[in-house]
């Protein structure tokens, strides 16, 4: 549906700029244009089923919900001279954390912040595409392929902004006897080097994050860090093995070090929004969705103090709004399901849980 159409349905809103989303937009859908979707989410960020559904329903529309509105209000009022605030989104698997993060990503993009976005950390921990021991850091491991992909994702998200900002490196990086990036060279050179040389990509990522931190402190840019599945950094095991078959912990990855350094509150002029999800950890550690349990001792001490924001199940208004959306987009086909009795049944069987509702409505 083209965005210029006048929208009269109560479950939609015309306000397409996340910076203006307020409490009265709660439970309403706003559409994201194809170009924005391509820019922000090509490298990941939307859950797979959600993305497929948005393509089937002819357009990405995100529901404005309380957690995102809360975050937007805080971000609008933040004192960027103070050390960065950390926000942790928590909730049951499938309650809408990733979508809220996607909403915040759109906000950050519109607010002119440099986006540092990790779509789903467990991909690096559970399905690494070939970890190699690091040359520069002893006893640590590189992710050459994932780092290249991440740099590509970063440049897609921030391409235009980086051209405008023209940030420069503050120190010299020596990659080998003949290759080095001198101080004062543009950051785009650093990113290009990482994209072309997989061997140095991980260290490029670490260098880039360090540079962004310094640039933020010296007020040359504002940085928004968005990480989904942050608790995977502190997972007790990963799929990477040494030659003697012992498991490499995620804390021994160079990428982990880089992102943990970025999520420390020792810099200013930015914000850090992170989600913790039970599905990011192994099966034995999924008892509770709460941040302290999911982060573990190490993770909690790293992130403390943070502002926890719960992502709950749908409220009644949000639930009806979601059903209205499905009906309007011709996804919920059964005529009986569209009645009051049908809605009551869906509310009961899904427990107002977003993912369960999506799965129940899918076949009918």
């Amino acid at each position, binding site marked *: 549906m083209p965005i210029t159409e006048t929208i009269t349905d109560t479950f939609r809103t015309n306000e397409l700029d996340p910076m203006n989303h307020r409490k009265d937009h709660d439970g309403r859908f706003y559409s994201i244009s194809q170009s924005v979707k391509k820019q922000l989410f090509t490298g990941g960020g939307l859950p797979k089923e959600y993305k497929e559904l948005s393509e089937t329903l002819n357009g990405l529309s995100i529901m404005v919900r309380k957690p995102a509105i809360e975050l937007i209000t805080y971000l609008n009022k933040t004192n960027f001279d103070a050390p960065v605030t950390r926000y942790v989104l928590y909730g049951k698997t499938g309650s809408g954390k990733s979508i809220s993060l996607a909403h915040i990503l759109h906000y950050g993009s519109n607010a002119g912040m440099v986006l540092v976005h990790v779509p789903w950390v467990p991909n690096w921990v559970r399905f690494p595409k070939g970890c190699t021991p690091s040359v520069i850091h002893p006893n640590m491991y590189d992710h050459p392929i994932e780092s290249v992909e991440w740099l590509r994702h970063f440049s897609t998200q921030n391409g235009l902004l980086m051209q405008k900002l023209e940030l420069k490196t503050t120190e010299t990086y020596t990659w080998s006897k003949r290759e080095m990036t001198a101080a004062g060279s543009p950051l785009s050179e650093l990113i290009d080097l990482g994209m072309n040389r997989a061997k140095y990509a991980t260290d490029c990522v670490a260098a880039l994050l360090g540079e962004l931190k310094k640039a933020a402190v010296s007020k040359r840019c504002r940085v928004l860090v968005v990480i989904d599945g942050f608790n995977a950094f502190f997972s007790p095991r990963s799929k990477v093995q040494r030659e003697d078959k012992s498991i490499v912990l995620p804390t021994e990855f160079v990428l982990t070090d880089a992102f943990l350094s970025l999520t420390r509150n020792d810099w200013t002029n930015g914000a850090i929004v992170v989600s913790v999800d039970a599905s990011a950890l192994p099966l034995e550690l999924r008892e509770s969705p709460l941040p302290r349990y999911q982060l573990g001792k190490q993770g909690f001490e790293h992130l403390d103090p943070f502002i926890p924001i719960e992502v709950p199940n749908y409220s009644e208004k949000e639930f009806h709004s979601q059903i209205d959306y499905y009906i309007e987009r011709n*996804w919920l*086909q059964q005529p009986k399901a569209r009645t009051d009795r049908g809605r009551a049944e869906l509310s009961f069987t899904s427990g107002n849980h977003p993912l369960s509702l999506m799965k129940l409505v899918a076949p009918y």
Partner: protein
Amino acid sequence: MSLSGVLRKLPSFNAIHCHLNFVGRIARQQPYSMYQPFVKEPTYNIEKLEQLIESGEAKKREFVPVKAARSDQNVSVFHDELTSKFINMVMEKGHKEIATKLVETAYMKIKQMQLAKYYKATTDAERAEIELNPIVIFHKALENCKPVLQLTPIKRGGATYQVPIPITENRARFLAMKWMILESREKERKVHFPERLAYELLDAFNNTGKVVKRKQDLHKQCETNRAYAHYRWG
């Protein structure tokens, strides 16, 4: 004697060895039901129940013994009897959950494919023609696949002839479903069952595809063998 003792009966071995003296020899056996013949099927459709109460029928049925409801008979707004039957036929080794998931995935794929066409269409007239409800598509597809006659082997003078005979509603429905499932189980497993089923159902809905062809082949065979039709009566 307990209630279940009154309603149920011991398995009768007569049921297994029952032949009817039919020349066509369609061995219509007694059902293997554990219930006595007077025990009725349950009405679990809420609208029907409300109608019965309104019309006064319910009062008459108050003391009629009723069979226990099956696990897939429910008052959900998504319940469809034909789909339940189909899921039972898809099911193997009692794995009902897997069978349900397969058929439901097929329904979802049907919706996806039809919606793709719908959002591509430019005029309202085009959009009105596209059917989006997977259950409506399923019903129509089955209708298009149901044969009207069937062949049965009859021996006459040493040779066995394939004789066309009428078909019951249940048998026609069974054949349609069976053929649909068999066509969706292909030898090369790259395209999985739900996707294949979705394609087959959409084809059958448009009166094309392998299953409809199979029905038409059967009808052609019946037509060529119409000369033997009188063998049915000897």
